[in-house]
């Protein structure tokens, strides 16, 4: 156990830092505020699209991949250093994560040659993807999805509805989970289709987020024709693909969550100073507890990474999503509390930081719901990590 990485790895970090110093666009330098949303009306601003392409072209988009996929074949430790550095500097990689983070690795792992050929554009962000998983009656219970795809010779006909679909309004393609065998047990009748979003029969209705600052969407499919060759992986074998996200980055996905949380704790210290609450023993103790949480979560992430890099399973990572999302929410609450009577004020000329704390509190609600709610994470820890029997 030691604090420093080896010289080769530190050289890797230095090269990345030099690249970022030279190329990071001014908009990214100004930084997303710590809740990761950019001002402006566009869902994905043009500068951010350009930046993703620049990262890709220089092998800094997914560094563990080969150059043709936007990488430089770096080691797992170097990938971790990459994620760490990007997060510390608050430099975004992309304005639409599904393409590079979920679709690219899934295509590479499960796709045929023609589908694998879609991966570079997905990773570079040239193609915008959305993920069609959730439906009105299938959220946490994803395997309960009903959107029906009927195979008719050389094509499927798709009917049904997706909901909470992020980026659907701007997406070129949807990585869509559909029911292809209604008679089979629910996990065994699901397939994945690549659906062009401009296909006739698709209707996208924007749904505004709770913050009113961003949208996801409902997507309706009415007799949408999808060529058979757009089936990813085996027919009725879609459930396996739900598990496939950036396998080699999974061990480092916690980095950004922890870095954001640390930045939030730093902001709490500043806020307490500005509001005079740095003299309040209760506030001081609560901020220290948040700092303790940040320190221990970072350590836990690295500890899990060490087991992963040694080839063992890393139960630590099952904890990280649960812990960082809940920690963030609690820290924003503390920030609001430090604002005193102004905790709910969003007026930019009154209160603190234009309502940054209460707004972030609202944004943070999503983190304990989306991508497997906190309750589902606890079920996973209890059943898969601790080996308790299913209820």
């Amino acid at each position, binding site marked *: *156990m*030691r*604090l*420093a*990485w080896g010289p080769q790895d530190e050289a890797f970090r230095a090269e990345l830092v030099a690249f970022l110093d030279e190329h990071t666009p001014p908009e990214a330098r100004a930084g997303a505020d710590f809740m990761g949303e950019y001002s402006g009306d566009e869902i994905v601003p043009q500068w951010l699209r350009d930046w993703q392409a620049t990262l890709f072209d220089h092998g800094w988009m997914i560094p563990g991949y080969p150059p043709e996929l936007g990488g430089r074949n770096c080691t797992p430790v170097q990938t971790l250093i990459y994620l760490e550095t990007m997060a510390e500097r608050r430099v975004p990689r992309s304005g639409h994560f599904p393409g590079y983070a979920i679709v690219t690795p899934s295509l590479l792992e499960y796709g045929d040659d023609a589908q694998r050929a879609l991966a570079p554009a997905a990773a570079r962000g040239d193609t915008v993807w959305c993920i069609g998983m959730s439906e009105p009656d299938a959220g946490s219970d994803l395997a309960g999805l009903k959107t029906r795809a009927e195979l008719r010779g050389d094509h499927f006909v798709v009917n049904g509805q997706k909901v909470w679909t992020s980026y659907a309004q701007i997406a070129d393609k949807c990585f869509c989970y559909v029911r292809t065998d209604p008679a089979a047990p629910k996990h065994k009748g699901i397939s994945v289709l690549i659906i062009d979003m401009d296909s006739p029969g698709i209707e996208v209705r924007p749904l505004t987020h709770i913050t009113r600052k961003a949208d996801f969407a409902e997507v309706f499919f009415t007799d949408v024709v999808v060529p058979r060759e757009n089936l990813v992986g085996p027919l009725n074998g879609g459930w396996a693909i739900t598990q496939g996200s950036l396998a080699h980055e999974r061990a480092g996905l916690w980095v950004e969550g922890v870095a954001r949380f640390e930045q939030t704790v730093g902001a709490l*210290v500043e806020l*307490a*100073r500005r509001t005079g609450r*740095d003299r309040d*023993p209760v506030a*001081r*103790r609560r*901020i*220290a*507890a948040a*700092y*303790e*949480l940040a*320190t*221990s*979560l*970072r*350590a*836990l992430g*690295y*500890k899990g*990474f*060490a*087991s992963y*890099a*040694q080839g063992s399973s890393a*139960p*630590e990572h099952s*904890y990280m999503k*649960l*812990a960082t999302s809940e920690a963030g929410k609690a820290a924003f609450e503390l920030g609001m509390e430090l604002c005193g009577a102004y905790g709910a004020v969003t007026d930019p000329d009154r209160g603190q930081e234009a309502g940054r704390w209460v707004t972030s509190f609202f944004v943070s609600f999503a983190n304990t719901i989306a991508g497997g709610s906190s*309750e589902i*994470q*606890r*079920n996973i*820890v*209890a*059943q898969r*990590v*601790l*080996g*308790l*029997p*299913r*209820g």
Partner: protein
Amino acid sequence: MDFTPTEHQTLLRETLRKLLERECPAALVRAHVDDPGVHEPLWTHLREYVALGTGPATDCCLALEETGHAAAPGPFLATVGLYTPLTGDETPGTVAIAGSAGEWLPNDEPVKTFVLEADRVERIAVVCPGPAVAVIERPGPERLRPVATVDFSRRVFELDTTGLALEARPLERGAFDRWRARAYASIAAEMVGTARRILGMALDHARHRHQFGVPIGSFQAIQHKLADMSLALERATAAVHYAAMTVDAGHPDLLRAAHAAKAAAGDAARRILKDGIQIHGGIGYTWEHDLHLYLRRATADEYLLGTTGWHLDRLADLLFA
């Protein structure tokens, strides 16, 4: 930050785990309630490991997780976690520092409180204002007053130094802080070990106890408690390893990391001991069941070398400095 244990560390941990399974079963911890002498055979084995006190903090903490897991009685923590790192002397020893308020910081009060295992060590390092350290031979019982706590596995004393000629050697501030950080990490390591023991017992019980025709571990209310207990434990364990690494590296963050580790361990231990007995139900409330031996240790350790709240307050002092 590389958390991979070295081969040597893995071996150390496994050797100690086996040794303690053999030499420190629950029956020994229970026998120690009425007869403190029963720890002696165990101590002859653990004594062979006192050099850990002058070696890397990471190795020492891994060992202490095992003694905590076994709730091992005896002066192992006092020696390798406190005395040896302060003095460089591998003789069994302990450290006297806190005064009447029980705060583990240098003070000029003659009566020192919370001196661990003072009647079974050979030497005591008395920390004086400065800070400075005076090492004395263990005095007779007239200067040592045992103080009963809820924990029967650890013995705590008051040491009266009134009238003793203390030849104190000054300590550099940096060295003292490094020693403190190491001491906090050391007790935190024992605490996560004890918490792991309790969590293990609760998990075992959840798997084997049936109610309503099913294992209680299949109830979601129990599963979610166990998931949160386990998260608290893993977090605290990682925080302890990080703190130990910062001590070994002489990293400027070492005090923050150590305060965080002791606070994380205190939090985890408290959550795990409360939910641990809750999951056991009535059987856990009996004297006959071994659970309380570990609940006692976990409860009392939170108050040694600074409570959770005290460590958070010191951490706040550093954050707002």
